[in-house]
């Protein structure tokens, strides 16, 4: 089936789901499950037809390994999250619209990843931005949707500008040709490169565009946050990938100033990635809302992905590409777990919950494994990809970026542990005594994602084999893979053996534990309280400002959102001034100024031609 | 000593106490009528006695009276003032001073718990403060017999030989 037909079918199905939902909400939710699973199956089956070029009217498609890989990541997030849709329909304002846009944005991402030229890319990009913006505003606040849309628009306009500029030089819209045509004029190439990657940065939430993530992730409907974090953020990674591979950045900037062997513009972008790791980590540590916390963690992880992809080498690049998959799996699972808790308790504020492990053990395990992966601890997938990024950085000696990467890695222990401790561990609140585990249908996607995360950690080569194909297609040396082993210049990693030895240690500990006498079970409230009698579990639960002494060290730091607010206030003031001077209530005055401005432009054009 | 003398004369003029004395260095004691306590406390707080160090009570069982003692301290002058007032022991009711010194809330509860004086207007008065599950007359009243209470509640050790076994445990169950 050609891509165009496939997309057309998806859009028709999306429209169908609109009507199904209008008739029966729950059935509409199940329709999204069926459609997204169908899309996933279709894309998985497309692996064989890699390399094909297709076109349909003005749209051009090319099936590449990287597009396939990204689509699989995206559709995994979409299809797994869709299992939650049927149960959340009654909480939506416009359920029919939600389902329709959910599927349209999904179709848009597929179209974008398989785009063969810039026009196609841009059209589908905008489809996704628009449809997701309308979904986000169905959540808690509309403001979040504005922030998301404005920052996306900044990126989109920059991309459009870059595409047009590239077209004006090389005369084609086909992605690879348009960029390689720029090789002759490095000045233009730099502008195109920076403008093009801007949309990627804004989508991935790289500093200083990270402000939309906590707003959008935090207030989007609980069923859309996993897609946003696990899927849509990765569109930015795709743009970053195009910027360094289709756009041969290393070759075009080869003559520029180099820092540790990296051309200055790329090094600058890496520094932005490093900054977002640090800022994402620090901000995540002090969040009180679980979803905002995970959103900031996406900022930090976006930094790893960007750094990895920009390195464009044998090891670090593979790490970045693999981290994309691992983060999508782990982050979607973590968001789903939080959504499951919110489904039962109705809140995502960490200080309003506690001890959910005693009521929702499966959700707890899902969350645990996903955060182990996010923090980069073996034997989960996140460890392998972070390991590759570290090895790549160590190979190149990028000290400051590595320092940020280490900071983000250790800092992530802090922030991922916080929801674990505050939501799942600790005292069970009186209000939540009767909470039950979510049903099988909601548990299923979480468990699948968890198993995939574990599989990515134990058999990383399954994913890395695809990554090597991408590396080959991008013209760089692929990472060396032996059976179960990843080999780099600085040493090798056998994830399977690490897992086995971990299991060995665990087995010894387990045997040692069970041979000793069984322990006496006591209640959660029967804890050491300096022998004082406490009867209220809420008072015995430590969750609010968890890292208070650490947060105090940087609570005076400037906030990026405030900076944007100041700028917007300044622009509003300027607009007021312009209005007062040029409009003033009399249309004639306005027309006069427009004509005057036009005259000036014409004259100037005549003079400077 | 000038500040002390002027303070005493001020107090005499303003509060017209029944009696004043200087029990110790930089301490003034003034006995006032029970209905004068409120005015006296407000007056003294204005004069800089911002801290209520303690509110306590003495059981004058022969006179059938309770004596309430308010001790105030001035951080500007470094002077303690005791305000004393006697109320009827049979009808131990008094008004709260929490409107002047909010911290008196706990002192009044303590006095209520140990002497049975009721302070009208204190909302928390009947919550237990120190004594948990107390089941007798207030323990610091002179007519309370601690020995009898102790004997009835807490068993004594009866014979000295038992102690020699050094193992304790309930031999006498």
């Amino acid at each position, binding site marked *: 089936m050609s891509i165009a037909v496939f997309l057309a079918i998806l859009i028709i199905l999306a429209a169908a789901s609109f009507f199904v939902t209008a008739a029966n909400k729950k059935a509409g939710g199940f329709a999204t499950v069926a459609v997204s699973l169908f899309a996933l199956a279709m894309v998985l089956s497309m692996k064989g037809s890699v390399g094909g070029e297709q076109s349909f009217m003005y749209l051009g498609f090319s099936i590449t390994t990287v597009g396939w890989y990204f689509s699989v990541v995206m559709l995994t997030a979409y299809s797994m999250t869709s299992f939650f849709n049927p149960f959340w329909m009654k909480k939506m304002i416009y359920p029919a619209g939600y389902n329709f846009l959910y599927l349209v944005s999904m179709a848009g991402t597929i179209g974008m990843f398989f785009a063969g030229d810039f026009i196609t890319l841009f059209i589908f990009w905008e489809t996704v931005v628009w449809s997701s913006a309308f979904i986000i505003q169905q959540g808690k606040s509309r403001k979040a949707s504005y922030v998301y849309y404005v920052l996306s628009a900044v990126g989109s306009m920059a991309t459009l500008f870059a595409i047009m500029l590239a077209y004006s030089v090389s005369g084609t819209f086909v992605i690879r040709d348009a960029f390689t045509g720029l090789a002759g004029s490095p000045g233009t190439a730099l502008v195109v490169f920076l403008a093009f990657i801007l949309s990627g940065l804004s989508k991935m939430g790289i500093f200083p565009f990270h402000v939309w993530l906590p707003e959008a992730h935090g207030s989007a409907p609980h069923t859309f946050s996993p897609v946003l974090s696990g899927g849509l953020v990765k569109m930015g990674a795709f743009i970053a990938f195009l910027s360094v591979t289709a756009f041969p950045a290393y070759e075009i900037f080869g003559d520029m100033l180099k820092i*540790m062997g990296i051309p200055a513009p790329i090094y600058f972008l890496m520094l932005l990635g490093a900054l977002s790791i640090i800022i994402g980590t620090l901000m995540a540590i002090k969040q009180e809302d679980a979803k905002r916390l995970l959103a900031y963690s996406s900022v930090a992880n976006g930094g790893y992905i960007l750094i990895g992809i920009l390195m464009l080498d044998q090891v670090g690049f593979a790490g970045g590409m693999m981290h994309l998959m691992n983060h999508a799996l782990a982050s979607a699972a973590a968001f789903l777990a939080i959504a499951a808790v919110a489904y039962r308790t109705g809140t995502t504020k960490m200080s309003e919950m506690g*001890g959910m*492990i005693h009521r929702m*053990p499966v959700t707890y395990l899902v969350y*645990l494994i996903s955060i*182990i992966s996010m*923090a980069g*601890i*073996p034997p989960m997938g996140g460890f392998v990809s972070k*390991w590759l990024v*570290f*090895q790549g*950085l*160590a190979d190149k*000696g990028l*000290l400051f970026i*590595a*320092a940020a990467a*280490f*900071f983000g890695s*250790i800092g992530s*222990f*802090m922030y991922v*542990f916080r929801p*674990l*401790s505050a939501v799942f*561990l*600790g005292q069970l609140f009186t209000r939540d005594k009767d909470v039950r585990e979510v049903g099988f249908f909601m548990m299923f996607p979480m468990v699948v994602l968890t198993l995939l995360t574990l599989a990515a950690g134990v058999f990383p080569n399954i994913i890395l084999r695809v990554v090597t194909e991408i590396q080959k297609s991008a013209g760089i040396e692929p990472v060396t893979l032996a059976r179960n082993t990843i080999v780099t210049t*600085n*040493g*090798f*990693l*056998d994830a399977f*053996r*690490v897992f*086995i*030895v971990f299991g*060995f*240690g*665990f087995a010894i*500990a*387990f045997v040692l534990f069970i041979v*000793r*006498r069984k*322990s*006496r079970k*006591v209640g*959660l*409230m*029967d*804890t*050491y309280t300096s022998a004082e009698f406490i009867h209220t*579990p809420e008072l*015995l639960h*430590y969750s609010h400002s*968890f*890292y208070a*002494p*650490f947060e105090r*060290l940087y609570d005076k730091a400037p906030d990026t959102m405030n900076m944007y607010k100041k700028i917007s206030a300044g622009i509003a003031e300027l607009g007021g001034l312009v209005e007062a001077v040029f409009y003033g209530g009399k249309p004639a005055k306005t027309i006069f100024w427009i004509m005057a401005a036009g005259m000036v432009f014409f004259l100037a054009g005549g003079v400077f031609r | 000593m000038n500040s002390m003398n002027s303070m005493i004369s001020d107090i005499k003029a303003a509060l017209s106490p029944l009696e004043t004395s200087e029990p110790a260095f930089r301490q003034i004691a003034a006995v006032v009528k029970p209905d004068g306590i409120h005015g006296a406390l407000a007056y003294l707080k204005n004069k800089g006695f911002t801290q209520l160090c303690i509110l306590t009570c003495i059981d004058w069982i022969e006179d059938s009276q309770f004596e309430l003692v308010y001790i105030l301290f001035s951080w500007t002058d470094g002077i303690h003032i005791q305000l004393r007032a006697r109320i009827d022991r049979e009808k131990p009711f008094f008004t709260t001073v929490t409107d002047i010194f909010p911290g008196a809330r706990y002192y009044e509860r303590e006095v209520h718990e140990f002497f049975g004086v009721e302070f009208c207007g204190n909302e928390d008065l009947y919550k237990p403060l120190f004594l948990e599950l107390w089941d007798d007359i207030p323990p610091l009243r002179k007519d309370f017999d601690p020995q009898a209470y102790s004997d009835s509640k807490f068993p004594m050790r009866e014979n000295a030989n038992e102690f020699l076994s050094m193992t304790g445990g309930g031999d006498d169950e």
Partner: protein
Amino acid sequence: MNAMNFVYGFLVLVAVFIFQTTLTGINRKVTARLQKRYGARWYQQFLDIFKAMRKDSTSHGWVFDFGVIMALGGIMATVIFIPVAGFEAFPGLDNVFVISYLLAVGMLGMAMSAAGSGNPWASIGVARALTNMLAYDIPLMIVIFTMIFAFDSASVGELAAMQQGMGVLGWNAVRMPLGGIVAVIALLGMLGKKPFDSFIAPAEIASGPMVEYGGKHLGFMFILHEFMTFIEVSLILNLFFGGGATIWEYMLKYAVLYTFTTIISGVMPRFKIDQAVKYFYRVPLAMAVVQGLVVIFTGLGVKIWF
């Protein structure tokens, strides 16, 4: 990978336990002598552990037990990966990042179990421990990163072997003097020794994460602590002090390094946790960055060395 590897791994665990527990006992004596006391018997630590294992215990639910098992399991797996004087039970798995992140499994398990007890003091202790980790790890990782860049290897065993043969002058602590100082300070933080022991502060937060442990759970925590100490000291020993060519040299150096940290901590007061963070991000971090820049840009100490 065959059965012999697992047998070796098990023997390593037993040997490490005996060695480290004895050394801990001796170090208790050293601390006592610093305080002009006679001190406990040298085998006191064994008695304490076996006593704890013998007692009954209380459990606060399955995560309380599971966390303890996961912690000890993760830590024991890490011990097996540590190369000791060229010997590894599972050859080739001694990557620095694997060891330092596998160590985190143990810590996560312990934190999970502690917070699962429902005691707020445990959570406070865990919060402090994680903050402490963020403080000491960054300077240390920068120095280790520099070392990996300079020597083109991330294998602890290889890095240790490279330092041997030149005597004291071959040690990375001498080649990179600032890095060596950072490593020793970070070791104090890793071991939770004074002045960086605010997360177990017994009188203040009732021993923090350990607050609810008793009986076999506490015994597990003690065993875990012995293994963790071994991993941390061994890591620094292998990376900065040349490991050991023979097992005896290794043990001797290990004992000296560990006793040195004990002596330092014996005369130190305690930092508050935010003071610890500030300290690590001022002095050791600056030293680590300077060391890193020197090695990366000039090669002084690594490429240029005799």
